[in-house]
C-alpha cells in the first residue's frame, strides 16, 4: 500500500507548475467572482467545466495509446444530435441516453479496430472519420434542432450537483479501469508496444477498448452539451477538438504514448475552462479563445525543448 502512494506521488512530477498556476487562477477567479464560493455558484462552475473535462479525458486516453484523435469535435456534435433526436422515441430518456453512449462506443470501436489492427496512423484515420462523423451529424440534423426533455436538462444542468457526482464517478471509474489488465495494458502498449506485446499484454484489445471508451466519453460530452442548450447542434462540437488536445497537453500527457495521468488531464481542462470563463467576462470576442489555445499549446510543448536547448548551450 505504501508503495502505491509512493508511485502515485511520483506521477505528480512535472505537474507541480500546472497545479500552482491552476490554484493561482482559481484564487484570482474567486476574487473576481465571489459567487463561485457558494454551493450554487460552484455547481454552475463545474457544469461549465464538465464537457471540457470529458473530452480532455477522452483525448488523453487516445494519446496514452500513442495516437491522437482529431474527431473529438465531430463526435461531440454527433452525440448532441443523436441525443436530441432519440430522446423523444419509444424508449424515452433511458433509451436516448443508451443510444447516444452506445453510438459513441460503437464508432470508437470501429476507429480503434482500423487504427490498431489495420495499423494505420491515428491522425489520418481520425481526420477521415471526423468528416464521416460530421457528415452523419449533418444528415441527422442539417441545422440545430431536436429536443432534450426538460427533466433531463434540469437533472444534468439544472440546480443539482449532478456534474460533480458524475466527475467523481469518472475518477472512480478510471481507478477501476486502471486496476484491470486492459487499463494497465493501455498504458503499457502506448509506452512500449513491442515490449508490451511480448510480455503478453493484449495490445490490440487494450487499444480498441480505449478507443471505445474514449468515443463513449465524447458522445457523453455531446449529450451533456445538448442538455445544457436544450437541443442538438451538428457543429456545436467544433471548438472541442483543439480544446481537448490543449487540455491534455497542458496536463502533461505526452504525444508519444504511455506518459500521462488522469489528474493531469483534468487539471489541464480545468485551467482551459477557467481561462475561457475569464476571457468571456473580460468581454473578449469568443474567437480570442482560439488564439489563446493555440499559443498555450505551442508554449507548453516548446518549454521543455527550450529548457533542454538552454542547458545544452550553457554546457
Amino acid at each position, binding site marked *: 500500500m505504501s508503495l502505491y502512494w509512493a508511485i502515485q506521488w511520483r506521477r505528480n512530477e512535472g505537474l507541480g507548475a500546472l497545479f500552482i498556476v491552476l490554484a493561482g487562477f482559481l484564487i484570482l477567479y474567486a476574487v473576481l467572482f465571489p459567487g463561485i464560493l457558494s454551493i450554487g455558484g460552484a455547481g454552475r462552475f463545474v457544469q461549465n467545466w464538465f464537457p471540457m473535462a470529458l473530452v480532455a479525458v477522452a483525448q488523453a486516453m487516445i494519446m496514452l495509446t500513442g495516437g491522437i484523435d482529431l474527431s473529438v469535435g465531430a463526435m461531440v456534435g454527433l452525440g448532441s444530435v443523436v441525443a436530441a433526436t432519440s430522446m423523444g422515441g419509444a424508449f424515452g430518456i433511458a433509451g436516448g441516453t443508451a443510444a447516444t453512449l452506445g453510438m459513441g462506443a460503437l464508432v470508437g470501436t470501429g476507429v480503434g479496430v482500423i487504427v490498431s489492427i*489495420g495499423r494505420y496512423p491515428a491522425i*489520418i484515420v481520425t481526420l*477521415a472519420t471526423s468528416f464521416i462523423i460530421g457528415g452523419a451529424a449533418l444528415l441527422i440534423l442539417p441545422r440545430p434542432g431536436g429536443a432534450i426533455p426538460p427533466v433531463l436538462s434540469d437533472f444534468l444542468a439544472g440546480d443539482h450537483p449532478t456534474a460533480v457526482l458524475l466527475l467523481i464517478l469518472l475518477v472512480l471509474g478510471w481507478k477501476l479501469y486502471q486496476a484491470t489488465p486492459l487499463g494497465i495494458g493501455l498504458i503499457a502498449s502506448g509506452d512500449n508496444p513491442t515490449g508490451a506485446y511480448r510480455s503478453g499484454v493484449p495490445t490490440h484489445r487494450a487499444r480498441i477498448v480505449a478507443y471505445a471508451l474514449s468515443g463513449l466519453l465524447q458522445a457523453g460530452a455531446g449529450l451533456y452539451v445538448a442538455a445544457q442548450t436544450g437541443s442538438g447542434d451538428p457543429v456545436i462540437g467544433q471548438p472541442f477538438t483543439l480544446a481537448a488536445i490543449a487540455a491534455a497537453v497542458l496536463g502533461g500527457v505526452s*504525444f508519444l504514448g504511455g506518459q500521462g495521468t488522469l489528474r493531469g488531464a483534468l487539471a489541464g481542462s480545468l485551467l482551459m475552462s477557467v481561462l475561457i470563463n475569464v476571457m468571456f467576462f473580460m468581454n473578449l470576442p469568443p*474567437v480570442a479563445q*482560439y488564439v489563446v489555445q493555440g499559443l498555450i499549446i505551442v508554449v507548453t510543448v516548446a518549454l521543455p525543448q527550450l529548457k533542454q536547448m538552454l542547458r545544452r548551450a550553457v554546457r
Partner: protein
Amino acid sequence: MTLRGFALNDRMRATLPYGLIIVLWIGAGFFLPGFAKFGHLRYMVELAAVIGLVGIGQTLVVIGGGIDLSVAATITVAAIVMPLVSFAPDTTGIGAILLTLAVAGGIGAINGIGIGILALPPLIMTLATATTLQGLLVIIAGGSAVTVNNPLLVWLGSTRLLGIPVDILVWAAIAALCLAWLHGTRTGAAVFAIGTNALASRLSGIAERRVTLMLYTISGLTAGCAGLLLLAMNGQGYVGIGDPYLLSSIAAVVLGGTSILGGRGSYAGTIAGAILLVTMTALITVVNASAGWRSIILGCLILGMLPLSGRDQNR
C-alpha cells in the same frame, strides 16, 4: 495481414490514379451527357489547380515525414490579407501579390521554426498555428467578404492562352518547378532521406533543420498561391474560404500514392490525386448534393485509400 502482400511499387502507386481518372472520365462521359466535353474537363482541371497547389506543400511536408494542418488557414489568410496590403502606386497589383506571398511564407516559416528548430511535433505546431490564425482572422476581418480588384489577379482568373486558362498554366509551371526540385536536386533527395529516417540523415550530415524549415516555408508559400488563385477564380474572399482544402490536400496526397508515413512518394501522383478528387466530387454532386453525404463519401474515400498509403510497421 493478407494486405501486406498487396504492396505496389512507388511508380505504380503514382500512375494508378491517372488510370482511374481516364476510366472515370470515359465512363462518366458515356452516362452523363456533357461530362466529357472539353469545356467541362477543363473546368475540373481548373478547380483541381487550387488543390494541386496546396498539394505541393502538403506532398513535400508529408514526404519529409510531417504533416501541415495549417494550409486551410493559410489559404484564408492569403485571400483576406491580399486586399489589405494593396497600395495605390502598385498599378499592376504585383506588389500586393508578393506581399501576400511573403505573409503566407512567413506563416510557413513559423511552422518550420517550431518543427525544425524547437522540435515540436508537426501535428501540434501546425494545428496550433491554424487555430491561432483562425481566431486572428475573425478578429481582423470580421464576417465581411472582400472583393478582389487587383488587376493581375483579375487577369489571372479570366484569361485564356490558346484555350487554356492561365491558372492551369500557373499550376503547371509551379508543378514542373517542384518536380524538378524534388527529384533533380540534392536538397530534394534530402527530403526523402529525412522522411525515411530523420536521425540517420542528421548523422550522415544532412542539414535536417534547414531542410525542414524550407519544407514548411514552401508549404506556406504554395498555400498562399492557392489562396490567391482561389480569390482570382471566386472574385471574393471570406473567412472560411480555405476550409475545404485541408482535407482535400491530404486526400490528394494519399490518393496520389505518397506514403503518409514519409519518405516515399512523388508530387506527380498528387497532381493526379487532385484531378481525381475533383472528378469524384463532381460525380458525387451529380448523384447527391447533400453536404452531409459529400463529407461522408470524402472521409470514406481517404479511409479506402489508406491501404495504398502505408502503415505503421513498428508495432
